[in-house]
């Protein structure tokens, strides 16, 4: 049975079966990355996912095999998606975006049941906050890496992450906690 290295070599030559094989194996993960970063705009996500794959095959001759193909493709997916989001200006005002969007969250108990997954809940974050949260808590990027990719400081990345977590914690309260005591006042109450 052909290994992935051989498949990649054939794909570099433009062999359709090899290219399709790589796509079949890795598209679910690439698509998932794109969808997480883009949010609930599926049309945009589909456009970006296609561009990601074009870029993967364009860059394939430069793939040295230092990392797993999936890891390499994943990195391209993240970078390409962030670039695309930046082009659509969805990440243009990332700092103010988060400040405005995550400071206060109105409890929506009737909607909480619908928002069963982190991915669904994350669509309620601003694009910038979602990107930081997804990159750090889901994809495992460091704040320094996020800062570099998003053009912000690592401190800014941290700040946005904590605000994003705080909002998600509220949105996903039905999944992660026991209710807060109403008589307890925190220093910086969110509710």
């Amino acid at each position, binding site marked *: 049975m052909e290994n992935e290295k051989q498949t990649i070599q054939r794909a570099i030559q433009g062999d359709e079966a090899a290219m399709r094989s790589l796509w079949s194996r890795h598209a679910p993960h690439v698509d998932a990355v794109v969808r997480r970063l883009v949010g609930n705009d599926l049309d945009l996500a589909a456009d970006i996912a296609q561009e990601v794959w074009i870029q993967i095959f364009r860059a394939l001759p430069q793939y040295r095999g230092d990392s797993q193909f999936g890891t390499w493709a994943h990195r391209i997916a993240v970078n390409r998606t962030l670039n695309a989001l930046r082009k659509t200006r969805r990440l243009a005002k990332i700092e103010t975006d988060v400040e405005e969007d995550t400071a206060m969250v109105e409890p929506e108990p009737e909607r909480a049941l619908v928002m069963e997954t982190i991915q669904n809940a994350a669509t309620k974050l601003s694009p910038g906050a979602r990107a930081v949260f997804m990159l750090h808590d889901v994809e495992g990027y460091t704040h320094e890496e996020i800062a570099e990719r998003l053009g912000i400081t690592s401190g800014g990345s941290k700040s946005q992450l904590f605000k994003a977590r705080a909002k998600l914690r509220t949105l*996903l309260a039905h999944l992660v906690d026991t209710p807060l005591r109403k008589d307890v006042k*925190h220093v910086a109450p969110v509710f």
Partner: protein
Amino acid sequence: MSHLSFERLAALADEQPTSEENTHLTQCADCAREREAHRSLLTMAGTERDALGLPLTRWDSLSARLREEGLMAGSGKHEAGRGSRLPLGASHWMLQVAAALLLVAGGVALGRKSTGATVLPGITDGARAGQSANVRGGAPDSLPTTFASLDEATRWKNFYSEGYQRALAFLAQNDSAGQPAGTPAVMKTRLAALDKVTKMMQEALSDAPSDPVINDFYLNSFGQREATLRQLNNALPQNVRLNSF
């Protein structure tokens, strides 16, 4: 110490508390519970990485783009030396040429037949015997069960393909099953149907650009369409000509 801020509790999902914060967490059930909620959230986020959803990409549209970009064989960049493929999009003219050649070959074959010569130049004796068997109405009894070479197999395939096309043309001209034979209305109906078939075959060719059967079907339907268009032009008044339908 006051309660920890919500954002600080969010940070403590994966950061270590200071000694002061730690003391508070051991004494404050609410803050401890909040920290646990954030830790749970972080764990959930970690598992989210493996969560998959409906696919965003489709191979047919992606492969079409890859061909356009010259990244996939079958497009201009990779075509040299990879002759087994008959691409569609970028090489539509090739198909037209192929279809035209098919028609010309059919015409030449008809002409040769009318003069008593063999239909295909260079065809084997067996093929001639097969043809005469066909003319007699029986099955060709000399078609070899195996072929000595790709060339021989290709000649036989072309021989029967052309025969099939001529037979179809003859039937279309003479057996209209009760409809007026060769009227423009019949031909237009056929053209419309052939347009649908050709379109379907184009889509099939996008999925399987190298498949010889699909390529043959496409060429046949394309050739039939051109032949019908030509018949229609012959049937129309002399001052009316159709170049497309």
